């Protein structure tokens, strides 16, 4: 379903995600700055890789961006809703952008809003929503055009355990009923342990381990996934680089309009 080999981006990342299988929930874990978000951006056509090959559902995102875009849904790490629009209007706009036409559109929006518990608030502007409601709306939106793959980049960050629990249940439901492949990242190891069929752990831009949660635990002799994760990636805290050189690079990127 997803294949990425010898992938590089100028700041030196190097990734090889081997073959995410169709219909599975695949967790992509790693410390801050390991290259998770960059990899997702490259898979979702937002960044061009400096070199290497990627295939999403057999297609190269660089050569066929629009074909690839039709096939995936994404929930970004940062919010990406229009707060001035209502929940329903956000979904309608998404449906227009992804060519989900009537009569299927109305029914699909209704089904998803109901599943994610937002149907009663559909006519309210998103700016009146809580963090959990926004996240649910974004995930509902990701599923709207019945994608083959859904990318979830740290979807549960900052949410309370109740919301997180419910959210994963809903994602699992859709994964089973619609056979959507789910590619997720998270820092909550117990979530990955519970939800993911298979896990890849990335560190310094490299995959250091890949397998089912049970396999990873067995491999490292750990009781929990968190222990396995620490055994594989070490205990050192990763500071995001903010040296003068990095700030300069940031400035240059700002003026060139890139991030």
């Amino acid at each position: 379903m997803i294949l990425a080999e010898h992938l590089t981006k100028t700041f030196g990342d190097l990734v090889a995600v081997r073959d995410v299988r169709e219909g599975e929930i695949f967790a992509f874990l790693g410390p801050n700055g390991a290259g998770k978000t960059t990899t997702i951006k490259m898979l979702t056509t937002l960044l061009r890789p400096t070199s290497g090959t990627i295939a999403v559902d057999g297609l190269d995102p660089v050569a066929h961006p629009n074909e690839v875009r039709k096939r995936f849904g994404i929930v970004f790490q940062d919010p990406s809703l229009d707060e001035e629009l209502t929940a329903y209007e956000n979904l309608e706009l998404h449906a227009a952008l992804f060519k989900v036409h009537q009569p299927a559109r109305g029914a699909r929006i209704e089904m998803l809003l109901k599943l994610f518990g937002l149907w009663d608030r559909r006519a309210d502007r998103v700016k009146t929503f809580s963090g959990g409601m926004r996240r649910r709306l974004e995930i509902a939106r990701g599923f709207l055009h019945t994608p083959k793959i859904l990318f979830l980049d740290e979807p549960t960050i900052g949410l309370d355990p109740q919301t997180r629990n419910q959210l994963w249940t809903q994602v699992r439901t859709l994964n089973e009923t619609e056979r959507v492949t789910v590619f997720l990242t998270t820092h909550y190891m117990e979530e990955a342990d519970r939800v993911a069929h298979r896990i890849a752990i990335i560190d310094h831009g490299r995959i250091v381990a890949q397998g089912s949660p049970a396999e990873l635990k067995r491999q490292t002799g750990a009781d929990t996934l968190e222990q396995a994760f620490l055994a594989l990636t070490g205990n050192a805290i990763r500071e995001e680089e903010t040296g003068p050189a990095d700030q300069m690079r940031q400035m240059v990127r700002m003026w060139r309009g890139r991030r």
Partner: protein
Amino acid sequence: MYVIYMLWLRQLKRYVRSRSRIVAALGQPVLYLVALGFGFGPVFRKAGEGDYIQFLTPGVVGMTVLFTAVFSGIELIWDRQFGFLKETLVAPVPRLIIMLGRTLGGATVAVAQGLLVLVICFAVGFRLPGPGAIAWASLYMTLIALMFTAFGTALASVLADFQGFQLVMNFLVMPIFFLSGALFPLADAPKALATVALLDPLAYGVDGLRHAVAGASYFGPLTDLAVLVGSSAALLALGSYLFSRIEL
């Protein structure tokens, strides 16, 4: 087409829903009308140039359209920072379509704001030669709006955040306004100033508006239209190109 329509509609909804923004954007033109219009009015008349409000109205309307349009374009930075841009960039729609939807929406908002100011100008004594003048004025407003929304989009595509915004306002947008002859007649301006105005696309917009609502023109209406259409097309092309190159 449907995507363009939906993105256009989004801009309009955002405009109508932010009443504070509409009112805030009216403050500046009203201040110019009242302070300059009534302040300089007597001097203007003594100099034999006629009624200053009559002269100033096209300039203030042009200014309103200019500022609203540039802001609409620059709103892209907002979308980039608050995330909505990503939603449009991963859609299976050519970037050109997205840019067009945004630009048409932004331009419509700018024209609406310009018409609102025109109504206020009536309240302070401005008079139109005839009803047809509104149609011509709307045409010029539309061209100014398209041109500068595209200009704002082009700028926002190369600026990743608001840090460069003040720079752009002080060194690009304000000069475009002040050098356009919106506040003073170019015919009597010193040669150097009039020459600089030749390079300012807004000068042709204001001149066209003035021709539409007051019958007087400095460049001639055909030149105005030709320059406005030409620079709108050029800025739309530039905006589309820069927008298509955005990476996140």
